[in-house]
């Protein structure tokens, strides 16, 4: 059944692109969060991919990401406002931004804005949106560490705490052993 659905999507997609005019650009943009876990204080990787499924190059393509408020997300690397001069038909471009969440809790990842000129002599730019990843839960750093960090310090403390119950009997035994240990009798 799944195969039928995929086939139906592909046919409608192909039919749509065949019906497309040959000299107009059309962009599809996706926004993905490349994270298995969203953790406060750890890197959050956002990837944008823009495909040109039209018949001619898209000009003056702008990607504007404004959905990450500065007090909640810190930019580690990358730019949130970028552009490409042209995207050739049938090609795609990709862009990555790395952020760091400063708060934990639920966050709704919404779409970024894409604008472009579909042809050389287009009157105005076309404005569209990327896909939206949806709502995600950002885990607090303490909770994440509790589950994933190696806890080396905790184990060391535990080892130190068990030392008295091991060393005191051992010292007692050793002291009495060395005091009362008689040498083996000589064989005549």
């Amino acid at each position: 059944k799944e195969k039928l659905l995929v086939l139906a999507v592909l046919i409608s997609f192909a039919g749509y692109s065949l019906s497309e005019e040959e000299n107009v650009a059309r962009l599809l943009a996706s926004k993905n969060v490349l994270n298995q876990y969203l953790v406060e204080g750890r890197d959050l990787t956002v990837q944008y991919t823009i495909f040109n499924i039209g018949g001619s190059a898209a000009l003056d393509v702008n990607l504007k990401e404004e959905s990450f408020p500065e007090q909640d997300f810190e930019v580690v690397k990358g730019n949130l406002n970028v552009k490409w001069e042209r995207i050739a038909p049938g090609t795609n471009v990709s862009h990555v931004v790395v952020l760091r969440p400063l708060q934990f809790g639920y966050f709704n990842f919404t779409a970024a804005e894409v604008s472009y000129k579909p042809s050389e002599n287009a009157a105005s730019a076309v404005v569209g949106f990327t896909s939206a990843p949806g709502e995600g839960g950002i885990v607090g750093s303490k909770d994440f560490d509790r589950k994933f960090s190696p806890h080396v310090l905790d184990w060391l403390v535990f080892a130190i705490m068990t030392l008295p119950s091991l060393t005191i009997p051992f010292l007692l035994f050793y002291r009495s052993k060395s005091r009362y240990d008689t040498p083996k009798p000589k064989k005549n």
Partner: protein
Amino acid sequence: MEFAGKMISLVVLLVVPFVVLGDSCLSPEVKAETYTTTEAIVSTETVFIVQFTLTCKNKVRDMNLYADINGRTLPVTKTDKPDLYQVSISDDHKKLSSGKYEVRLYDEEGYSMLRKAQRSGESVDSVKPVTSITFNHPGVSKGPFVQSEFVAVVIAVLVWYFAYSTRSQLQSSN
């Protein structure tokens, strides 16, 4: 009249080189900041982000650049800040292993020559890039090599074994 003609041709000769070279970058200066993924537990793919400023002596701005990195050729992303560009790639952790990587930057001319060389199967090294950036990817960490719980259990077993063997030694000697 002849002198004027000579002056005109001289001026034209002086101007033409600048017109021809107007688009290419003279003595490029590049400053780059790179980011590579370090934690595999949190991220599903490895990404490289190379953010750089490229300034030319002949003040060429807003250039259309193309980058060649790890065998991939892609257009360079322009930002809203002048002279600031970004190159980003992403792939599986296994495909972007640790090591040194080089990003070669080409302008429009260089890019068309590069494509020509790629199509005819010639060596790509013959096309000279505007500039190139090298960076090091230290690799992703998948967590500690050995679980600390495992180490704790091993040590506990060793301590118990020592105690048990000493005890059985004492008992057998009595």
